[in-house]
């Protein structure tokens, strides 16, 4: 139906779209998702050849080369076979005609009906999109933004177009009308739709497939539900994390820095947390990773940091860990939840090489973890439960924080000190002389733990194992530390294994939750699924007994509708 090949659009020197390849089958709805400035609107307009910039490449609509078509040909196609519902802005509708007239006009213009019939169809359409009949003869300025949006939609489908381009079709509507109008758009199933939106909700409601646009390139493409539930490109995941919704339970996280267009390499590399050298110089090829799933990333999408494969450990007759398999992706938080004695800490200690597993293997970045090389400990760090113990009472704050650098023999004294200051700052601790020379017993519990975290962060690890890092702290200190950790995740793409018995805290900070009981991982999945629809009775019990401000909030989870 629609084939776009190597589409490049530039306004002057600025390349807005850079090699877009897209295919739309008849009747299919594809959402173009991306931040403002990604080139979504330009792509939509290019298809109708309505852009003012230079267009190169191929756009083939039902066999017609749009970029080579004459003006007359285009005239026949525009509004008749391809229609567009513009993003509602005040200047789209003609202020001197009533909205009914404006919807009638293209029908008459393309000679589909006579004026009388056309008016009838126009009224039907306006009614269909929920505009009150007494508003049909109103002028655009008399209508609210939402009503104008409905008019634009009615206008777009007035000629039974084969391809409908919708630019932010629902953004002017409030939440309830949004789902209602969304349903109406969706009901028109014969029509092929190209939806440009920054709103993931719109995309998930209207589209079968999603193409994620960043910096003029498609970075990820696939089935809508797949892309949204299991994003593979770091940008897609970041978009989802920044999007307030009722599905995910983790705190919102922004994407670091702002939208820029780097001169070379992958467009996302300045904001990506897993950039390697090649990302800066070479634009990634789009590769198909599974059915209908395409991704453009040198790292093959979000990489897997750590995998534990069937780890077992017994202490005498006690089987502390039974065949535990986990994996943690880059920039992801996996919460390991379970009661005391369920083997969480043992598993953490095994990952850190503090304890030898009886069987099983640990992989870091795809290779078997080598604990004899110091390199492992530059990448993986641990935060211990009790900061009073994990900090030596003989070492001052500065000595404690720089200890990893002393051990790894990184930098000279001044550099070590500078790094220490930086991480102390990141953890919101004072950087004065006076504080640097304090000993742990002069610090509060919260300060001690933040010093311990600063120490774990000084080598810029990629994975942090946090074993009940806030167990000894009050709620406010806990919130502060968790926020700081999430912030680091946003900035550096830090992966975290967050070990806790508190599923309420886990829910706020983790992407995925794994539940551990008597040494086995009994349930694992996205945090929202575990919290709202747990399968295991033990998980249900955990949730029921989690902290709540209303005594009855979760008590009825068994009966609660899912």
């Amino acid at each position, binding site marked *: 139906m629609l084939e776009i090949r190597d589409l490049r659009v530039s306004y002057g020197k600025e390349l807005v779209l850079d090699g877009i390849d897209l295919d739309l089958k008849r009747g299919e709805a594809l959402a173009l998702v991306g931040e403002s400035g990604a080139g979504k609107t330009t792509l939509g307009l290019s298809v109708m050849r309505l852009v003012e910039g230079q267009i190169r490449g191929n756009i083939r609509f039902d066999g017609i080369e749009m970029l080579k078509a004459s003006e007359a040909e285009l005239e026949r196609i525009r509004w008749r076979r391809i229609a567009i519902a513009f993003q509602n802005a005040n200047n789209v509708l003609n202020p001197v005609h009533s909205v009914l007239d404006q919807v009638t006009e293209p029908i008459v213009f393309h000679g589909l009906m006579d004026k009388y019939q056309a008016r009838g169809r126009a009224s039907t359409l306006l009614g269909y999109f929920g505009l009150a009949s007494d508003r049909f003869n109103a002028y655009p300025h008399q209508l609210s933004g939402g009503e104008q949006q409905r008019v634009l939609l009615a206008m777009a489908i007035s000629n039974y177009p084969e391809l409908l381009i919708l630019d932010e079709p629902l953004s002017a509507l409030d939440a309830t009308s949004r789902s209602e109008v969304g349903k109406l758009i969706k009901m028109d199933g014969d029509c092929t739709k190209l939806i440009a939106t920054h709103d993931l909700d719109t995309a998930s409601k209207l589209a079968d497939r999603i193409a994620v646009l960043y910096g003029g390139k498609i970075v990820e493409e696939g089935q809508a539900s797949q892309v949204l539930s299991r994003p593979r490109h770091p940008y897609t995941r970041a978009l989802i994390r920044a999007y307030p919704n009722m599905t995910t339970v983790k705190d919102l996280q922004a994407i670091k820095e702002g939208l820029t267009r780097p001169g070379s390499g992958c467009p996302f590399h300045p904001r990506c947390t897993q950039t390697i050298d090649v990302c800066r110089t070479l634009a990634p090829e789009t590769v198909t990773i599974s059915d209908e799933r395409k991704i453009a990333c040198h790292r093959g999408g979000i990489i897997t940091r750590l995998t534990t494969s069937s780890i077992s450990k017994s202490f005498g007759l006690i089987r502390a860990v039974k065949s535990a398999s986990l994996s943690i992706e880059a920039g992801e938080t996996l919460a390991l939840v379970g009661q005391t004695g369920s083997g969480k800490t043992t598993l953490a200690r095994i990952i850190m090489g503090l304890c030898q597993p009886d069987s099983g293997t640990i992989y870091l970045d795809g290779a078997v973890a080598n604990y004899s090389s110091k390199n492992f400990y530059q990448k993986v760090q641990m935060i211990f439960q009790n900061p009073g113990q994990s*900090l*030596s009472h*003989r070492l001052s704050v500065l000595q404690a924080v720089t200890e990893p650098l002393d051990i790894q023999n990184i930098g000279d004294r001044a550099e070590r000190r500078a790094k220490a200051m930086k991480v102390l700052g990141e953890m919101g601790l004072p950087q004065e002389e006076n504080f640097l020379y304090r000993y742990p017993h002069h610090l509060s519990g919260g300060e001690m733990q933040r010093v311990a975290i600063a120490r774990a962060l000084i080598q810029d690890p990629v994975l942090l194992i946090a074993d009940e890092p806030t167990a000894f702290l009050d709620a406010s200190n806990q919130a502060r530390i968790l926020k700081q950790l999430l912030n680091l995740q946003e900035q550096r793409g830090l992966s975290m294994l967050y070990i806790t018995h508190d599923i309420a805290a886990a829910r706020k900070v983790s992407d995925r939750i794994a539940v551990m009981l008597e040494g086995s991982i009994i349930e694992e999945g996205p945090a929202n699924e575990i919290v709202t629809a747990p399968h295991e009775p033990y998980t249900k019990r955990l949730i029921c007994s989690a902290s709540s401000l209303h005594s009855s909030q979760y008590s009825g989870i068994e009966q609660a509708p899912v």
Partner: protein
Amino acid sequence: MHINIKREIRESSTGKAGIIILVIMIMLALLAPLIAPCNPYHQSPMSLLPPSFSHWLGMNHVGQDIWSRLLYGARTSLMVGFGTGALATLIGTAAGISAALIDGLYERIMMRVIDTLIIIPMIIVVILLSAYIRPGVITLILILSFLSWQGGARVIRAQTLSLKEKGHIAAARTFGASRLYIAWRHIVPDLGPILLVDFIYNVRRAIFLEAGLAFLGISDPNMVSWGTMMRDALSYSYLDAWRWWLIPPGIALSLTIVGLTFIGHAAEPVIEPRFREVGIA
């Protein structure tokens, strides 16, 4: 939370007394060349003279000044004592910590060696060895050290095993620290008080053994030693000479050992806080 061994010793009166005694002994030994009126080896025809102004403690059977020999004897005793103390504690620490940190075959062998050394009656071995070798100061230090580190090593290993599980040591391991680093930077400082007690114990025993061997006449006969003095004096016990010849080295030896015992006793709460007297925080 800090165990302050200095304070612990200073706050006990026995500890203070022990330190005073030991300091005096050390001063006498150090200053021997300055205070001693005569060369301790110099023999004169004036044998078995009673005390006089020129010879405070008289002369021995070969006409050597007893006071000078007493001072030089302190040097031998303390040198053997501290030398053995240092070496034995060093060996014990290295063996104990390494056995605790390196597990597996090494630990098993090391522990069996320690067990074996503990059951061997050390004094008999020392006497046998000395009888053949006739050790001088250095040899004696080596013999005594190699035969007296095992008790300390056991205690140190046990302590290290419990220290090893401490959070900050686990943390250091997660920074990629080597065993040597952990032993040196974390375990030795934490063992400090125990090492001191072990050291004092070793010093005390070495001084006692050195005197004993000399008394039995099986160490280097040319060595000036309290033990040799007592032995020589004893063979002249039918004369009055024993009063100024036998008693002074006896007192000196007893005082040194008592002084060390006092310090050790004062430091004991450090290893075993239950020994602590009520009222001392």
